[in-house]
């Protein structure tokens, strides 16, 4: 670098506010002997600090507030769509793939009780070059029924009652993503190059190939993740930098839904329980629902009522507080609502009345 070039660099740095103290004095020493250059430098300095007219006057200044409003609206639409694991700041190539690939919607194997809703997001675009037409599959299962679906990659998902599973119809991204509200059992086809991520409430579950159960109903107190085979990694989805919890087979992770600010993995915020290793895969309480069994161990009546509501598609009303705290163990398989409540009455004293799909429960005085 010749001497002159060094000076231009020093001038530029100094004008840009990048020069160190040494560089500044080096520059002023030099300029001291170059009056002409000094003059030019001072002129530039004056120009530099004039507020630059924005070089693109063609950018219209339409009403900012209106624009912000429409941005907020679109963002909210996106949020209600499938969660997206892209870490902020990464190149979103995947996004652009959407612009070129329109996945064909996959034919689902679904039971008659399921409604499949196709949600199409149209972003109004002035230019047809890239219309990200996002097709999303939503599989919704009503109370009182269960179903098994097959994802486009061959993975199986069993959905429990009152649950919804959202995923992109194409399912061809670098990452296989689904979002769950409710309860599901996943048996994921291994594909190390395409990680599988389940978004469940405030946690993300990352999978390479594995079988596990996730329970995250909105009206439950906890999100439960039970791993039977393989391994999964759980992170909080509110930030990209949270520590991870690795689950081993036959472990169950319990994360409280409240408080919303819980950051994993503070020991007091979550629990990891070990399942009974002597049990066979179809004997665990957590996954009994796949085998059309409803199991409960030490749950109080209030918690059990929620389970029964989903299982039988009924509404249960407690007419007094005392009954809520009775604890039950047991399981039902083929029982009707009446048979189930009669069985419960054998071990605890309470009264119940069934009106259509509603059950009223009170203590027996």
């Amino acid at each position, binding site marked *: 670098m010749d001497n002159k070039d060094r000076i231009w660099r020093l001038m530029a740095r100094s004008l840009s506010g990048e020069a160190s103290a040494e560089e500044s004095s080096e520059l002023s020493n030099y300029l001291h002997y170059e009056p002409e250059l000094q003059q030019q430098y001072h002129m530039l300095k004056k120009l530099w600090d004039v507020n630059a007219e924005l*070089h693109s006057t063609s*950018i219209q200044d339409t009403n900012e507030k209106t*624009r912000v409003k429409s941005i907020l609206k679109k963002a909210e639409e996106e949020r209600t769509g499938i969660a997206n694991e892209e870490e902020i700041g990464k190149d979103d190539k995947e996004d652009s793939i959407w612009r070129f690939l329109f996945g064909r919607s996959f034919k689902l194997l679904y039971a008659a009780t399921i409604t499949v809703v196709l949600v199409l997001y149209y972003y109004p675009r002035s230019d047809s070059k890239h219309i990200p037409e996002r097709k999303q599959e939503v599989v919704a299962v009503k109370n009182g029924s269960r179903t098994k679906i097959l994802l486009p990659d061959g993975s199986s998902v069993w959905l429990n009652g009152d649950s919804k599973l959202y995923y992109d119809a194409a399912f061809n991204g670098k990452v296989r993503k689904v979002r769950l509200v409710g309860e599901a059992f996943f048996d994921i086809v291994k594909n190390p190059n395409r990680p599988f991520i389940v978004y469940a409430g405030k946690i993300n579950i990352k999978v390479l190939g594995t079988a596990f159960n996730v329970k995250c109903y909105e009206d439950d107190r906890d999100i439960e993740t039970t791993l039977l085979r393989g391994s999964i990694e759980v992170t909080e989805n509110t930030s990209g930098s949270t520590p991870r919890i690795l689950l081993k087979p036959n472990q169950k992770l319990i994360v409280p839904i409240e408080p919303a600010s819980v950051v994993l993995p503070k020991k007091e915020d979550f629990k990891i329980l070990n399942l009974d290793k002597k049990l066979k895969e179809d004997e665990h309480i957590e996954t009994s629902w796949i085998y059309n069994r409803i199991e409960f161990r030490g749950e109080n009546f209030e918690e059990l009522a929620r389970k029964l509501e989903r299982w039988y598609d009924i509404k249960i009303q407690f007419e007094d507080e005392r009954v809520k705290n009775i604890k039950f163990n047991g399981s039902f398989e083929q029982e009707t609502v009446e048979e189930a409540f009669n069985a419960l009455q054998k071990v605890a004293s309470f009264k119940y009345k069934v009106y259509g799909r509603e059950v009223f429960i009170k203590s027996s005085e």
Partner: protein
Amino acid sequence: MKEGRKDFNSCLVDLQRRISEGDEHAFEEIYSHYHKKLTAFSKNFLRSTELAEEVVEDVFVKLWSKREDIIDINNLTTYLYSATKNRSLNALSQEARRLVTESLEISDSDMKAESYTPHDLLVTSEMMQLMQQTLELLPKRCKLIFRLIREDGLKYKEVAEILNISVNTIDAQMAIAVKRLCAALSVDKSKKDRVHLPG
């Protein structure tokens, strides 16, 4: 102007926190501070105001839809510019992308002064205008770097990160720009000494 940037930067962390908590006013502040600059920046790639505006809108949609993550961004400025660049490039076809990135790559021609003569400049008494004209004649990449530094008030390091080039390249390109500007100014000063053809 530099002062203004400093003030804004010191509020940035607070704005980011407020946005992550869902504060729409904070988001609006960020938007009005950046959107014009980002649109101008995007136009470097897309050559279309309309497309550039769309790209920038997408960037802000993403920012709000992932607002919980904003707290983890170390430097929101470089994040927004990088996201704008990436989305702009994505919006281009493969071929166009190649042309754009090539024009941003180092070539020797940047390093040598272009062979324009000062006489080509329409000399006006408005120095600002003179400066703008001089800038217009700079090689594309040099111009882009200069504008990001001077007009958008970014630091060398930030521009290097956004454009994915070394700080040394920024240094060299800024030197070229300053050299040209000085040359233009000296022409301006000496124009009374210049010989004019009788017209």
